[in-house]
């Protein structure tokens, strides 16, 4: 049976004789055996070091409450989901999860909507003050977030927005980096696509909804994934603007549990609960995460 199977893409060239193979110089892209072994060893060590904290997080979260000493604690047994019962039952983790979902999802929708509208106008339209506005956006990217955070907090607290969803979300919609990426992407689309629709008598809003939005799906996906990530993991802003127990996000909530000296297994169970959604998003949208960084340099 086996001898009937031939590799489909067998090279037509004659196999190189032994002497040829030895003589042939090492070519870029063709790896020597020693290099492959060394590379694999280094990569495996790197991967183990990288993954170890995740392993520890999961394994230790399934320990019964009580002292477990290293290294025995790294074994998967004794196994007990009691920390999950406690952290989900007695603590506000589900409420924090909901807050985090609202904060992240509403922000993604808002950022994508406003940034794509503005990006479209900056890329394809002419209006007075365009360049001034654009350069002021650029200049503001230089200012560290922490400088603007204090006045933003003052504004939000004057408007009674502390401990509200809108107070948390609205300031994050002013994302200039998103407008840049949108403008850059839309500028690369040929004008003719929009002109045709316009000649057919479509309103500008119509052109935006039925022509621009479908064409910019790739950048919407990339940017959406990152805006979600930034908000899901955001810490300092939710920490200052969502102070009450009920308005914490997963990150600020878990940090507060830690300051209450909650048992390690509960702390880690909470961490796993907070990590699973972003991990799933990463598994599904991995391509967007990685290509987003490679093609736009967007900050992870």
């Amino acid at each position: 049976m086996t001898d009937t199977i031939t590799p489909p893409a067998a090279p037509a060239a004659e196999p190189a004789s032994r002497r040829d193979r030895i003589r042939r110089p090492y070519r870029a892209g063709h790896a020597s055996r020693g290099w492959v072994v060394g590379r694999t060893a280094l990569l495996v060590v790197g991967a183990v070091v990288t993954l170890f904290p995740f392993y520890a997080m999961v394994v230790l979260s399934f320990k019964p409450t009580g002292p477990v000493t290293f290294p025995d604690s790294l074994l998967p047994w004794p196994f007990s989901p009691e920390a999950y019962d406690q952290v989900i039952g007695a603590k506000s983790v589900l409420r924090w999860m909901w807050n985090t979902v609202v904060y992240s999802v509403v922000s993604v929708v808002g950022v994508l909507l406003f940034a794509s509208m503005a990006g479209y106008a900056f890329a394809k339209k002419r209006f007075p003050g365009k360049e001034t506005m654009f350069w002021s956006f650029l200049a503001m990217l230089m200012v560290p977030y922490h400088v603007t955070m204090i006045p933003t907090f003052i504004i939000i607290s004057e408007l009674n927005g502390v401990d509200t969803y809108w107070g948390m979300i609205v300031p994050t919609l002013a994302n200039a980096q998103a407008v840049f990426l949108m403008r850059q992407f839309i500028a690369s689309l040929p004008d003719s696509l929009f002109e045709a629709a316009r000649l057919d008598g479509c309103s500008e809003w119509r052109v935006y909804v039925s022509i621009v939005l479908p064409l910019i799906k790739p950048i919407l996906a990339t940017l959406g994934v990152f805006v979600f990530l930034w908000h899901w993991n955001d810490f300092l802003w939710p920490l200052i603007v969502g102070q009450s127990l009920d308005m914490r996000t997963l990150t600020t909530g878990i940090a507060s549990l830690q300051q209450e000296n909650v048992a390690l297994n509960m702390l880690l169970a909470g961490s796993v609960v907070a990590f699973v959604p972003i991990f799933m998003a990463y598994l599904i949208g991995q391509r967007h995460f990685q290509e987003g960084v490679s093609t736009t340099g967007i900050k992870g």
Partner: protein
Amino acid sequence: MVALPGSRGRRVRRPSAREAGTALLFVLPFLLLFAVFRFGPAIAGVVLGFTDYTIGGETGFVGLENFRRLVDDPTFWSALRVTAVFTVLSVPLSMLASLGMAMLTRRAFRGAKLFRSIFFLPVVTSLVLAGVVFTWVFAEGGPWSRAMGAIGLPAGSWLADSVLVIPALVLVSVWSRFGYGMLILLARMQDIPAELEEAALTDGASAWQRFRYVTLPQLRPALFFVAIIETTVSFQVFDMIYVMTGGGPVRSSYSLVYLLYDQGFKYFDLGYASAVGVALFVMTIIVALIQRLTLGREE
């Protein structure tokens, strides 16, 4: 000089009022948000540094008072030192790890993608969660202290040691950031023309020589970019310190942003906190200029 793409290759004509009007409507929502929550606050953030603003109190201009206080405040100098030492250690180490892993996963071999995905996973992980786990990793009798003890290095809790706490935090930072730089460098590596390396090979260059004289010079702009991003990130270190050490022991891991947070949101001395913000801003600009003059000089 600045050719905005919309105006390229068209007849030069003034936009009609109607065209400009609809365009402005598209920009308006973002413009308002930006004016209120970025542009305004950026200016206000600097101005506040010259006031004694506190929530619910009287506010007045105090000139350079906050900055004078800053200069006299040993906590500020110690926070500055902590931030600087942390940055000086974590940026090069993280870039070295990025470069190494990018070189190792550069070729399309089986499993290359899996390794890249694994190395990027910490980048998408919250530093709060990482901080919780690493607190355990660095605890006395935990994996790190056992491993260090085994090779004859200090075996107590590094997080409780006023000197070793910074290296411990640096390690967490490298773990969490190197995957980002790796992807940036990999993207650049794919663009290096294969002929360059082939030519070097024909000339008998060794693997090290090819890396040193072909790959590395080509990566210069990408390395510059990563250096800027990582420096900015390091200057603003806060989340993991908040979780892992609370700035301790005795302020030995108390960073600038931690000082800003405490002053602004614990003591509600927002004027002084803004002055710390201005100092951070100035530092960021200075370092960006230095990096531009050294690393990025050939651009």
